[in-house]
């Protein structure tokens, strides 16, 4: 079942929005935007389907819109179909659910994104810093646009 069939109700309610994208030019075959509550359902849908694997978990700091967009990327082993999910959250208190109970590889990706952008991932058991120094204070987030 394709992603737009499975999430047809949520698309109608406006919780899951397909973004405009030309897959030839961008290399992304399915570009969607969803809310943080739907993220676990999306991850379960991707796990139960054809052999998709977790490619990356990262974030974009949109300072003009006052949002941080969490970016989740999945790709397939047998033929290529890159799915990228954008999850926008407010910039002053960015909280996202973790997908590490379905994709344990996300633990490291989320640790890295958390320390660079200041995002809190709920239920992430191991939320220590990964690449930066351990004793920096938690508001030291280098990849934010207003970092000095």
């Amino acid at each position, binding site marked *: 079942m394709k992603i737009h069939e499975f999430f047809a109700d949520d698309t109608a309610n406006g919780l899951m929005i397909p973004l405009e994208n030309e897959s030839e030019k961008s290399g992304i075959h399915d570009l969607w935007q969803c809310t943080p509550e739907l993220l676990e359902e999306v991850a379960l849908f991707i796990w139960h389907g054809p*052999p998709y694997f977790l*490619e990356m978990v990262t974030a974009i700091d949109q300072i003009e819109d006052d949002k941080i967009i969490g970016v989740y990327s999945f790709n397939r082993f047998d033929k290529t179909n890159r799915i*990228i999910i954008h999850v926008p959250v407010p910039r002053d208190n960015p909280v996202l659910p973790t997908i590490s109970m379905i994709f344990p590889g996300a633990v490291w990706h989320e640790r890295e994104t958390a320390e660079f952008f200041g995002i809190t991932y709920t239920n992430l058991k191991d939320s220590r810093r990964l690449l930066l120094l351990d004793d920096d204070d938690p508001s030291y987030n280098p990849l934010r646009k207003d970092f000095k």
Partner: protein
Amino acid sequence: MSQMKQTNPYIDVPSYALENITESTFALNLGPQHPGTHGVLRIILEMDGEYILKADPVLGYGHRVQEKIAENSTYTQVLPYMGRMDYLGALLYNQAWVCCVEKMCGFEVPERAEHVRVITCELNRIASHLLWYGAFLLDLGGFTPFLHAFSDRERVLDLLEYVTGSRLTYCFFRFGGLFNDVDDHFLQNTMDFVEHLRKSLKSYHELVTGNVIFLNRTENVGTVDHFDARRFGLSGPVVRAMDYDHDVRRIEPYSIYDRFDFDIPVYKESDCLARYHVRLQEFEESLKIIEQAISAIPDGPIRSKVPKIIKPPRGEACMAVETPRGELVVYIVSDGTKTPYRVKYRVPSFSNLSVFAKLAEGTLLADALAILGSLDLVIPEIDR
């Protein structure tokens, strides 16, 4: 599909931070400076005698914030940084960046440039695998193959130095083509090298592959569970040794790889020995690609006209490339100005190392080093 529904999707992921060291166990640092960790990687091990109870990799000793540097540089200024991330497969990183921007802007690359890109990238893959072969066997205790592999590697580095000017951290590709043209001297020497390496591969197999000590140290060591490839995002030879037929050059062809005839080696055993076999067979496939590319190379320009200041249109793009370690994805978000808005490098060694904590539990320390060697990590690309 039904098999997938039976496995429970939820996995309880323990925290690998070392908390309780009891009286009978001790904590050991597989420290940042160690010949077996291929770079500055620190792993804190909780040991019970010689068995590892918990392994916790600590990263960041080589962290250079490449992604923030890219936000403050123009698209051309980022090009030398790509070679410094993975110094063993630098040309492939160059290709990922250059092809991503070319895709976003719609630049065409001339045929001759594409063929030269393929030839030099496959030579780089051979050089990287030769170093892996020498270092892996050095970790297991065999000193001789290291010297043979490096002697062959010197020939490859001489060839690439003749064309690009550097031995290790290349910056040879430009937007729309190449920096320099290649001449018949290079092509003839490459064909000679291909013949030479075919003979060397036979001697590598004779020296190592049937050796009883080598088999005892690598067979059934570091077996990765089949579904962990999906959960952790493994790629490259690690996943081709697990019965997944995944190679970006075949699945999502870029450049002109769809014109060449080469096989993808796939093994089922998922242990260190299978990964060794996959990489040794990849030598032969790369040699096949080089021969076909040299025989098909046309004459023509090596660089197409591109504007001086590169300003891709607003939007995002991904480019996936098969490096010797796995699938590299360069993800660029552009806002229409001459510097990128956000760049993310998804490096294969990061995902491949994240499964090490699970693999090393309950193994002997010597086996953990064999697993690290077979995963073929390059730490600067993990730390970026």
